[in-house]
């Protein structure tokens, strides 16, 4: 049963602080009957129903098993609460036992234990936040560092939707002009295909930047993936161990030692990232090693940053060339290893290190930090479903550009209309009126 199968009208309760001993713990209850159900867990004559939203009272809590303890109730009234419903928070001593007892007591009195995310779901359903903001709540709770918290915070404040809307309104203007000239050719000037192509170019660039920033926001939320790759026996595992300061990868002078993916967490300044050591890229007869190579290639595509390690004492191999070509410049750092062997090949923009002696490692770490330090002001967390819709819109704009090249303005405008639809969906907006209706309202047309 999924979260969407749950009833919407009943009252839900959950322990909102982590289960573990703390000075204080919070039990939260939300729904139409939150007040009555809460009253049943309070001793004395306090009339909870009479308390306006915004009050907090010290109370004596009755756990129903002969046990009582002091606590604080905080009252929010619908719709001015997190969920948009009546919502009451019990702040009590943070013993897991007491928290569980209070939860049990409230369930006995008619509340239902909430499913994970159900409070936020209700907030969405009651119009307190958009779906994208709800996703961002999760991201905020899961924030691992300053940057991921900032990105989530932006989504939470509706920044993502604002950015999409800004962009969307430009595209809507183009769509609007297209419909006007198509449906009422005797009333509107034709838009030249060159002009259309030009305006598409700039809008597509903006959309790409938006998607890029949304991806960055997601990456920040889960920590960046740094993949160490290269042909066999260039010292990838030695480098991985040197960077993480742990002996996670087995190091051996025989090529093909690392066959699976080895992952460790590492911190660079304010970032958390996972460092992924992979099998050396080569074609070989060993099936197990081949599986490792396939996995390594898959990780390469998904990586935020690739440390491409080459052996400074060996010439470039065709395999290295191929692998390097497949990774965009912005996503890779070329690391020339084994400089301790003395015969260093000079490669532009490469960082020279010796994983064995530790020489150059500090400057490599700095470079990594700098590469990961995306302009965090631009990054904004987005739900995967939103990124998919943005990508779909982008594909439409690419289709529209293709149509312009073929001089088919009808196909271009069909693609633009679809892009507009995807973007509207990504901000949870459904247009009730047809585009044609808006054209009719804006202009005097006939025939």
């Amino acid at each position, binding site marked *: 049963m999924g979260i969407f199968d749950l009833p919407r009208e009943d009252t839900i309760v959950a322990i909102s602080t982590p289960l573990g001993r703390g000075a204080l713990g919070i039990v939260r209850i939300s729904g139409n009957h939150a007040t009555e159900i809460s009253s049943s867990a309070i001793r004395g004559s306090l009339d909870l129903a009479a308390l306006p939203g915004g009050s907090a009272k010290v109370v004596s809590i009755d756990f129903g098993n002969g046990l009582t303890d002091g606590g604080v109730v905080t009252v929010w009234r619908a719709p001015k609460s997190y969920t948009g419903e009546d919502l009451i928070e019990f702040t009590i001593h943070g013993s897991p036992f007491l928290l569980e007892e209070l939860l049990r007591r409230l369930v006995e009195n008619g509340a239902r234990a909430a499913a994970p995310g159900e409070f936020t779901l209700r907030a969405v359903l009651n119009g307190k936040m958009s779906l994208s903001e709800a996703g961002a709540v999760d991201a905020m709770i899961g924030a691992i560092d300053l940057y991921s918290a900032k990105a989530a915070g932006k989504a939470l404040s509706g920044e993502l939707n604002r950015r999409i809307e800004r962009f969307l309104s430009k595209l809507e203007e183009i769509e609007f002009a297209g419909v006007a000239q198509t449906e009422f050719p005797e009333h509107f000037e034709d838009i030249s295909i060159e002009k259309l192509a030009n305006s598409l170019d700039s809008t597509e660039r903006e959309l790409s930047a938006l998607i890029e920033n949304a991806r960055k926001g997601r990456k920040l939320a889960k920590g960046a993936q740094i993949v160490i790759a290269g042909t066999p026996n260039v010292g990838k595992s030695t480098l991985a161990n040197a960077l993480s300061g742990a002996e996670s990868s087995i190091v051996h002078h025989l090529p093909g030692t690392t066959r699976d993916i080895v992952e460790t967490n590492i911190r660079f300044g304010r970032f958390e990232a996972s460092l992924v050591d992979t099998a050396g890229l080569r074609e070989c007869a060993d099936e197990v090693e081949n599986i490792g190579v396939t996995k390594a290639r898959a990780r390469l595509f998904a990586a935020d940053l690739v440390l491409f390690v080459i052996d400074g004492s060996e010439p470039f191999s065709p395999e290295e060339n191929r692998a390097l070509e497949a990774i965009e410049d912005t996503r890779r750092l070329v690391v020339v290893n084994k400089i301790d062997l003395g015969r260093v090949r000079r490669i532009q923009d490469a960082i020279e290190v010796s994983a064995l002696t530790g020489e150059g490692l500090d400057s490599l770490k700095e470079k990594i930090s700098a590469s990961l330090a995306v302009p965090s002001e631009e990054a904004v967390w987005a739900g995967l479903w939103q990124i998919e819709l943005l990508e779909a819109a982008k594909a439409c704009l690419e289709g529209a550009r293709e149509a312009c090249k073929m001089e088919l303005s009808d196909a271009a405008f069909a693609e633009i209309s679809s892009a507009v639809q995807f973007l509207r969906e990504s901000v949870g907006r459904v247009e009730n009126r047809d585009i044609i209706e808006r054209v009719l309202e804006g202009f005097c047309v*006939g025939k």
Partner: protein
Amino acid sequence: MSVNYDIIVVGGGHAGIEAANASSKFGHKVALITFDLSAIGRLSCNPAIGGIAKSNVVREVDCLGGLMGRIADETAIQYRVLNLRKGAAVRATRSQNERSDYPKTALRYLRANPNIDLIEAEAAYLVFRNGNFHSVRLASGEHIFAKAVIIATGTFLGGKIFTGPLTRAAGRLNEPPSNLLSDSLNAEGFSLKRFKTGTPPRILANSIDFDKLTRQDGDDDYRPFSIETKTLLSANKQIPCWITRTNEKTHELVLNNLGLSPLFDNRIVGKGPRYCPSIEVKVIRFPDNPSHTIFLEPEGINSREFYVNGISMSLPAELQVEILRTIPGLTRCEITQWAYAVEYDCIDPTQLDERLCIKGIDGVFFAGQVNGTSGYEEAAGQGIFAGINASLFIEDRPPFILSRSESYIAVMLDDILTRGADEPYRLFTSRSEFRLKLREDNAIWRMLPYSERYGLLPQDTIDRYKRFEELYNYERERFAKDRIPEALRNLVSSPNKPTGLNYLKHPDARFSELVDYGYSSADFPREVSERLEIEAKYEGFILREENRAVHYSSMLGAHIPEGFDYSHVDGLSSEAKERFILSSPKTLREASEISGITPSAILALYIHLNCKKDVSRETSL
């Protein structure tokens, strides 16, 4: 005159003509009841057929064996190709027609049809027995019996026309309304509403100063509406239209006299079409617009009259002359027919099922303007659809259903049947999410399977197009494989293979070049070569269009809670809400499978299920 028929058609307008003609093709005996035989197929408004999206419907009707395309071609005095340079999908044809010949030609076709009897009378009552249709009672008291009836009364139900202070009961100028029938439908409990439309004045040709106007000539390179039309009207035989503009003086006169218009003294309550506003509405709604375009359309080759498109109104007659005379070229014009507004009853189309049959009473079909649409072409599309379905109904065969992805007729039907009509409904290309697929040029291929199934076109025509289709399929496959000659390859950029199809995608590609280099044959009929050319360009985009339609089907798993309150869902018609409440679907997928539910209704529901709007977002202690 017999009194027993298979199908009765009430009304001889563009819907009635097609309904009667289509029914006759099934071998049914048809009675067409109309007030006045000479008014059959009368062009109530402008003397023109086709236009954006509309010409597409004319062709669909034609390819289903309908008459509109043939009558339009036979009576055309000018053709224009609209959106010529914007791509094949939005290209449209429009003809100017000889006003007096159009009804004569329509009457000739109907009279020549042995299965159709034309009855000049007023249909007064629908008679039901045991909840089924039984007969039509004429105003004379006589009964006409049939198994089904198609109501195609246009603007005649409860029709009222307005010119300044004068209000007359009429369906059209000088033609009586159909009030008894309207009362009869009301008495049966059908819900009726009032719509309004209008028509501009006609003026004398020799009172126009043509040297003050801009001339608009016809086009040479057009495709006739009908697949049966073999000869083209050369440009030098076509009659031009003329363009002029209103000015501030015109607008001032209108503004100063708004009080005399029935639109503003509560005499007209019906909603008018926004895409065709009267001059009164234009000056009020667009006060910053100093001038509106006026098209003068000839009423015929030898006619002494011009139709003044763009200035419909319901102001008093004497004022109409004054207003027109403020316009360049019309300063000494003489009016031959006053402009007027018409208000009429139409039924709420959401009461109809997917066959255009009224729900709950089998055998009563509605078609045309009475369903809340406007336009000759929209009416014809519904007429032929209702005619085919009434025929299938009395033969107890499964209904004829078209999908939005295969025809503009279906787009229109789906729109009005599920959303209803808030104003007279008109088709536009942007109403179709499959507009790249629904083109003028491929109407025959889209309709051919149905014409064949129901025998709507002559067998030799069907055979001919099936041969073309085979030839096309064969060639398409070859064009996808075979490499083109070296000399033409510069138009195909790598990594695309230099095939015929890829060559044709380039805007500078010419089919004739493929013929010159021996890649293709000069003997291909135009239908085949043109189809290869157009499909090559559009197939990628059409595929993308279809894939996007699939996108909407992937979100259909979402759950709808039990007892869900549909009343607050934005963007759902009351009809859609009712259907949802009746069927109480558990998932969006189930909801989407309810008959008559549109993708937009599903999207609206999906969005609503995911978030509400307009709630204070404040959280406060």
